[in-house]
């Protein structure tokens, strides 16, 4: 019972490089989310998806892109990495919007941009 799986767990990028953070869930959840967690700032929503083929911006979408071609996968793309994107990234999913049941989170990806 994997739940929400994120890869990689750690990554160091140079400024201007690109990468994709992977997120997959095996719970058949329609809703998926990407948050970034910065010290003292809590979690900020980057993008979310309410189903395959549907994505929408959250609070801090600039510098990121997403796609949702399947129910299971919701990758987050950084095209031109900047030091401001150094953060811990969490993917989450939920059965309904949050359905009163809250989210299931992945274990996170710690990204450093140097």
């Amino acid at each position, binding site marked *: 019972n994997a739940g929400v799986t994120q890869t990689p767990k750690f990554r160091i990028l140079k400024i201007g490089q690109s990468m994709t953070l992977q997120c997959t869930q095996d719970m058949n959840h329609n809703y998926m989310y990407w948050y970034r967690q910065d010290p*003292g*700032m*809590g*979690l900020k929503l980057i993008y979310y998806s309410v189903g395959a083929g549907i994505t929408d911006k959250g609070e801090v979408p600039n510098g990121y892109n997403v796609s949702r071609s399947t129910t299971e996968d919701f990758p987050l793309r950084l095209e031109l990495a900047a030091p401001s994107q150094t953060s811990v990234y969490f993917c989450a999913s939920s059965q309904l919007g949050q359905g009163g049941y809250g*989210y299931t989170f992945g*274990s996170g990806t710690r990204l450093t941009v140097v």
Partner: protein
Amino acid sequence: AQRVTQPEKLLSVFKGAPVELKCNYSYSGSPELFWYVQYSRQRLQLLLRHISRESIKGFTADLNKGETSFHLKKPFAQEEDSAMYYCALSKNRDDKIIFGKGTRLHILP
């Protein structure tokens, strides 16, 4: 727009003492409220939801609509309670969750 405020960044409490983590929210409707916890080196996990009125690991939280608060309480702190705690709000069950900035709870021996 809805907002969640956790006024304390860090709360240090002695083992066995009562714990209260404060959370205030701003939203004109009837929100759904949550507490999430993140133990060291672990993923965020749901601690409790206001709609279930449950007690998890000795923690309870009561929604006070008049004061727009959802404080998390435990009568006797344990060392394993040391963690980061996030209060969170959703406008309704179909909407996304907004998180507060979090409070780090440190239980002193």
